[in-house]
């Protein structure tokens, strides 16, 4: 077949539409890009070729606006086994064990069909991890929505949560953590980022690099249908009427088939019958085959008539661009095809030879004997233009940052700080997310030592005395008001969170959720954030092993806050180091590591109480964070830390309250004296979000303070843990206030259930009443 199709010229198929400028534009290809395409081909592309290029040169697959900046990120460390460029990053955790992890976004699909959009997002990230040879052992997710006062937002929220839960629960991978933030900037563009973590023996690592001329290329798993055609380019456009029109192309997930594919893929990888495997994710067969060929610097030829399809009469264009879920592309060893088929058959799945690796450097697609697309080798991937634009900071955001937080006039009620504290605890962004994670199976696989609700999740590595700590963090509000600092802060907060559980931060994956990069203001945010992430990762020695970029998260009303989400993996050397975030024993001292400042800008306080996103965000200094983490870990390993919880949204007052009543079955009280900072504005002291702070409870405060001093970290005893009935008690010299714990706990634990009460549980049926068009 190959030999035959060699000589043949590329033909367009009977019935293919003729290429017009309008059609080129409709495929999201600019005139400049089209010129490059013509130059590369030396002729007009066929309709099929146009489709292929539109997918591969889409933002999602080509990273054309971000790749140059991403290249600046630190990616190396002795423990990094696989950095960016593969389906997932991989680090060594010792004893021959390795951890694979990756984050991926499904923002645009979830905005249109929250249940299926979120579900298929989880499916995609699971495949990215098990195609590396790792068994998925944990899932996390990072979500952003508008305010819950909107019925459409409640529908999106309920649907996304159910979609994530139903998929992960069925596959049997525990969802152990994540974050949910509610902010007006996400009203039209919810964010759904999913992270998966897998475990493997170092020796089992496999990559998606095609090799071995003559080796067969096989399509494995579910059949190909007309799902999500152009999903990739869809994810690269502003959400608009245009994408509304693409709704029928939404993909439907099948978690049961995913579970079969997971078991079959791991068995395949261990069997030695294959040389490479990759999931058919965004842009399906096209991107998986082209990327594999490019990585291996070989040619491939694929015959679309050999691809198992779900529907009759599918065109090459459709087969190449279909985003049907639960499919894999495999390069098998020549002669091992039947062994591959046998393994798939054991799991009731199909495998079909659809092409082969060839010597001449071309990417060729045939329909039987007709050549319908042919590109000069890896240039199909490499020729995609990379754009470097002129960054320019938004004047509006500059002005917002310039406004003084201290000039904001306090409400009358605020004279009682307890009122403010209660309001903050019931703000959905701060309030308990139990309503969410009760729908996630977090304990399957019996390895979850700390699940949702902890600063970071802790999953033990069976057969060792070790555990890994996992979290996702990213504060878009801080980033919007100061992008570079915000990039540093996102990484630092993630590192702080894993350290609070007793883990050494090891490496990150990241998801960059931004607006339209062609706008200089957005491009500025992107470049600054990436620089900030790089700075923090260098100082904290947590290299970037991978990630994902989601751009064009905007609608006619405007763009989202620039939102990098950082997925952090930390290593706990001994199970005895695992540390809870909540108070453990009445009578323990409460020590604050780090210092309080008058930084109130960009705080949740300003948003929740005054509806403002203004001011200079707290400055994040990675060197100080590094010292804090080192001091904290030394104390934890010394066995003198009973609990550790970092200060973030809502500041010190909220952090203390969470330590006391985050576990509603085990509520404590506390009595603190903050007079040492009496000169600071009390709002800033109580609710400011200064970085580099951790609330520790301990029976040996002397040891904790000595260790901190040795690392040059401020450490002060601020009070004691008490019994629940004595309530929360604050003293700032002559300014004192207190609150009953059950009142604070009610605010914290019931805010989201109340907001969602009466919301019809998201069957996919109960959908369209809230669809954008009807809003």
């Amino acid at each position, binding site marked *: 077949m190959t030999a035959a199709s060699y000589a043949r010229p590329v033909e367009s198929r009977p019935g293919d539409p003729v290429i017009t400028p309008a059609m080129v534009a409709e495929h999201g290809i600019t005139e400049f890009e089209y010129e490059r395409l013509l130059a590369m081909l030396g002729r007009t592309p066929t309709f099929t070729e146009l489709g292929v290029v539109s997918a591969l040169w889409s933002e999602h697959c080509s990273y054309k606006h971000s790749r140059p900046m991403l290249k600046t990120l630190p990616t190396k460390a002795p423990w990094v086994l696989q950095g960016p460029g593969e389906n997932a990053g991989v680090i060594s955790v010792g004893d021959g064990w390795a951890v694979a992890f990756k984050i991926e976004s499904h923002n645009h699909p979830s905005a249109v069909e929250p249940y299926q959009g979120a579900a298929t997002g989880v499916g995609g990230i699971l495949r990215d991890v098990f195609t590396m040879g790792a068994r998925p052992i944990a899932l996390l997710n990072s979500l952003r929505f508008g305010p819950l006062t909107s019925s459409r937002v409640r529908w999106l929220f309920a649907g996304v949560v159910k979609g994530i839960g139903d998929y992960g629960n069925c596959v049997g991978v525990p969802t152990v953590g994540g974050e949910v933030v509610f902010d007006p900037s996400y009203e039209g563009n919810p964010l759904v980022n999913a992270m998966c973590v897998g475990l493997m023996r170092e020796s089992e690592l496999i990559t998606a690099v095609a090799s071995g001329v003559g080796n067969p290329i096989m399509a494995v798993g579910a059949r190909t249908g007309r*799902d999500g055609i152009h999903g990739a380019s869809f994810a690269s456009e502003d959400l608009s009427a245009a994408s509304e029109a693409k709704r029928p192309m939404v993909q439907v997930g099948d978690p049961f088939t995913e579970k079969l594919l997971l078991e079959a893929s791991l068995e395949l990888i261990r069997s030695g019958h294959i040389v490479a495997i990759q999931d058919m994710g965004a842009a399906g067969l096209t991107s998986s085959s082209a990327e594999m060929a490019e990585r291996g610097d070989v040619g491939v030829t694929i015959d679309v008539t050999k691809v198992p399809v779900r529907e009759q009469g599918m065109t090459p264009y459709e087969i190449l661009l279909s985003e049907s879920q639960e499919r894999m592309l495999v390069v098998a060893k020549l002669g091992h095809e039947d062994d591959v088929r046998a393994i798939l058959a054991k799991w009731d799945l199909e495998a079909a030879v659809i092409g082969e690796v060839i010597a001449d450097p071309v990417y060729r697609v045939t329909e039987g004997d007709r050549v319908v697309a042919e590109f000069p080798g890896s240039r199909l991937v490499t020729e995609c233009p990379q754009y470097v634009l002129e960054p320019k900071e938004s004047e509006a955001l500059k002005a917002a940052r310039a406004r003084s937080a201290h000039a904001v006039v306090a409400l009358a009620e605020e004279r009682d700080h307890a009122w403010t504290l209660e309001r903050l605890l019931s703000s959905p962004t701060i309030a308990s997310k139990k309503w969410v994670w009760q729908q996630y199976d977090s304990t399957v696989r019996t390895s979850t030592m700390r699940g949702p609700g902890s600063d970071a999740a802790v999953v033990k590595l069976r057969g060792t005395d070790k555990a890994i700590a996992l979290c996702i963090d990213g504060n878009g509000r801080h980033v919007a008001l100061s992008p570079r600092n915000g990039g540093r802060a996102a990484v630092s907060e993630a590192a702080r969170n894993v350290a609070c559980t007793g883990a050494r931060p090891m490496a990150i994956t990241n998801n960059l959720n931004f607006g339209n990069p062609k706008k200089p203001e957005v491009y500025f945010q992107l470049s600054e954030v990436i620089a900030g992430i790089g700075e923090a990762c260098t100082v904290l020695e947590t290299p970037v092993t991978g990630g994902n970029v989601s751009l064009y998260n905007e609608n006619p009303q405007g763009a989202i806050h620039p939102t990098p989400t950082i997925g952090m993996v930390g290593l706990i050397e001994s199970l005895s180091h695992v540390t809870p975030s909540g108070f453990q024993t009445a009578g323990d001292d409460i020590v604050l590591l780090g210092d309080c400042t008058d930084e109130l800008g960009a705080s949740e306080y300003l948003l929740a109480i005054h509806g403002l996103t203004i001011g200079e965000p707290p400055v994040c200094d990675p060197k100080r964070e590094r010292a804090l983490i080192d001091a904290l870990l030394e104390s934890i390993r010394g066995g003198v830390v009973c609990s550790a919880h970092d200060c973030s949204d809502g500041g010190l007052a909220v952090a203390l309250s969470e330590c006391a009543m985050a576990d509603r079955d085990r509520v404590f009280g506390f009595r603190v004296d903050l007079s040492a900072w009496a000169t600071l504005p009390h709002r800033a002291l109580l609710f400011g979000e200064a970085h580099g702070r951790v609330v520790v409870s301990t029976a040996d405060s002397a040891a904790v303070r000595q260790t901190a001093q040795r690392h040059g970290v401020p450490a002060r005893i601020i009070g004691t843990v008490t019994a629940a009935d004595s309530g929360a008690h604050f003293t700032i010299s002559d300014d004192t206030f207190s609150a009953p714990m059950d009142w604070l706990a009610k605010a914290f634990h019931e805010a989201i259930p109340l907001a969602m009460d009466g919301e019809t549980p998201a069957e996919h049926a109960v959908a369209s009443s809230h669809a954008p068009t009807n809003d």
Partner: protein
Amino acid sequence: MTRFRCAIHIVPRRGILDPQGKAVADALHSLGFADVSDVRVGRHVIVETEATTADAARARITAMCEKLLANPVTEDFEIASVEHA
């Protein structure tokens, strides 16, 4: 006003993956029902509502389907019957 019992069929749109239908078809085959060529699983919704006439009831039901009962992204609906309850 009279009361009508209305039956609605909501089925996955052609071309959209129907994992439930696929699972049932596979099961029927393994149970020996080899003649089964295709299965699709949707929802059968029975709504009892007051209306002045059958046509009025039908119109209301159509509105309910468009606003709530059927997912316009993935499903088609059909009003199977409108009868006096």
